[in-house]
C-alpha cells in the first residue's frame, strides 16, 4: 500500500435513485485528523454520503477523489475504508471471534489483532458465542471492531451509538479519540445531538440532499442543527 491517506474529497457529487435526488452537488473536502459529525433529518442523504465515501455507491454526477487526484473507487483505496453502517454487516451464525478472524484473514491482518480488538470493545468474555445471541449493543461494538480491524484510514460510522449503553458509548468516544490522534479521517453520522461536541473538529448538516451547514469546531451540535434546519424550512 502507498502512503497514508491525506484527504478525501467530494466534488459536486450528486446521486440519484431513479427520480429521487438523494444527494445534490455536494462538495466537501475531509483531511487527515478530522472528525466530522454529519447531522440531518431522515432522508437527508447522510447514508448516501457514506455509501459514496465507502465507494459501494458511485456518484451519478461529480467525483469522489482521494488525495485530491486519485479516484477513491480503486480497490487499493477501498481497502482503506472502515464502515459501520445501519446494518451490522455481521453473520449471525458465526461467533464473534470467528467473524473477526474471517475478516482479518481476508484482509491479511495478523490474527493476534483479533484478540486485541475483542478486548478493546470488551467482548472477550462473549467471543465464543454466536452473534445471533448478542444484544444490540454487543453487536454494534463487534461491528466497530470489524470495521477498525484492518486499521482503515477513512472511518465511516453511521449511527454508531445505536443500542449502546452509557459504558459502551464511552468506549466509542475513546476509540474516536484514538483515531483522531492517529491522524485518520473519521466521519460520524449521528442523530445523537448530545454527543460531546469537543470530540468533533467539524460538523456538517445535510437536508434534502444538500449541504446546508458546515462549521469547524462546533460548540454545540444541537444549536448548529437547529440553526441549519431553520433556514431550510422557515
Amino acid at each position, binding site marked *: 500500500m502507498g502512503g497514508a491517506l491525506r484527504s478525501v474529497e467530494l466534488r459536486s457529487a450528486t446521486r*440519484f*435513485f*431513479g*427520480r*429521487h*435526488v438523494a444527494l*445534490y*452537488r455536494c462538495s466537501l*473536502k475531509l483531511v487527515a485528523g478530522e472528525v466530522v459529525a454529519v447531522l440531518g433529518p431522515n432522508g437527508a442523504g447522510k447514508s448516501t454520503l457514506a455509501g459514496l465515501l465507502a465507494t459501494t455507491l458511485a456518484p451519478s454526477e461529480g467525483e469522489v477523489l482521494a488525495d485530491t487526484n486519485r479516484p477513491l473507487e480503486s480497490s487499493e483505496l477501498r481497502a482503506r475504508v472502515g464502515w459501520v453502517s445501519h446494518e451490522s454487516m455481521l453473520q449471525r451464525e458465526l461467533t464473534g471471534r470467528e467473524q473477526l478472524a474471517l475478516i482479518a484473514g481476508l484482509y491479511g491482518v495478523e490474527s493476534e489483532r483479533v484478540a486485541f480488538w475483542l478486548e478493546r470493545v470488551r467482548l472477550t468474555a462473549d467471543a465464543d458465542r454466536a452473534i445471533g445471541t448478542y444484544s444490540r449493543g454487543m453487536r454494534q461494538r463487534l461491528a466497530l471492531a470489524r470495521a477498525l480491524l484492518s486499521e482503515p484510514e477513512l472511518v465511516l460510522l453511521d449511527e454508531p451509538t445505536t443500542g449502546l449503553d452509557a459504558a459502551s458509548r464511552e468506549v466509542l468516544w475513546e476509540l474516536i479519540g484514538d483515531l483522531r490522534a492517529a491522524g485518520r479521517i473519521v466521519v460520524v453520522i449521528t442523530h445523537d445531538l448530545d454527543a460531546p461536541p469537543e470530540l468533533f473538529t*467539524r460538523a456538517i*448538516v445535510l437536508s*434534502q*440532499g*444538500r*449541504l*446546508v*451547514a*458546515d*462549521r*469547524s469546531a462546533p460548540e454545540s451540535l444541537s444549536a*448548529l442543527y437547529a*440553526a*441549519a434546519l431553520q*433556514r*431550510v424550512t422557515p
Partner: protein
Amino acid sequence: MMSDKLSWMAVFASLAVLSALGAVFGYAPVEASMGIVQKIFYFHVSSALAAYTGFFLCCGASIYYLLKGDRRADVVARAGAEVGVLFCTFVLISGPLWARKAWGTWWTGEPRLMLTMVAALIFYAYVVVRSIGGRTEITRRICAALAILGVADIPLVHFAVQKWRGNHPRVLRNGGISDEMEVALTVAMLAVFSLFTTLVLLRIRVGMAEEKVERLHRLATARGNDIEDRRRSPLLENP
C-alpha cells in the same frame, strides 16, 4: 426531426409488408405437397432471423452498458430484447403449424425449433425480470447479464441439439425452391426486417423519452432546492 424519419420508416414498413403479402400469396406458386400452409415458410424464416438479430443486438448493447454504464445502451438492449421476443413468439407459433402439415405432428425434435424455444425462454425471462425489477440500476445490470449469458448459451444449445437430433431424417431442407419462391422470400425478408427496424426504433424512442422524463423530474426537484441554497450560505463556513 427523428419522428418524421420514423414515420416514413413506418410507412415504408407497411408498404413492404403489403407487397410481401402480395408476393407470397399472389406471385409465388402454391407448393405441391404442403399446399397453402407452405406460405408460412416465408414469414417464419425471416421472423426467426429478425428474432436472433434482436437478441444479438440486445447482447451487444448489454456488454456496452456494463462496460461503459451508458443508459442509452440499456434502452437499445431493452428494445432489441422486447422486439426479438415478439418475432420469436411468431416463430414458435408458425413452426408447429408447419410441422403439423409437413410431418403430421405439432412438435418434433427439429433442432432449430428447439434452439429457438430455448432462446425464447431466456428472453421471456429477461422481459419478466425487467417488469418485476422496475426502473432501477440493479435491474438494468441483472438484465444485461442475463442477455450476455443467454446469447453465450446459444452456440452451445445449437451444438448439443444438433448432435442429439442432427441425424434425424426429418430435417427441414430449403433446397429445391423455385425462382418465384425465392423472390417472394426476399420480399418477405425485406418486409419483416423493415418492420423489425421500425419497432426497435420506436421502442428506443419510448425508452429515451422515459429516460428524459426521469431526468426532468430530478432537475425539477433540484431546481426547487437551488432557490433555498441562496438563503443558507452564512452557515457554510468551509468553502
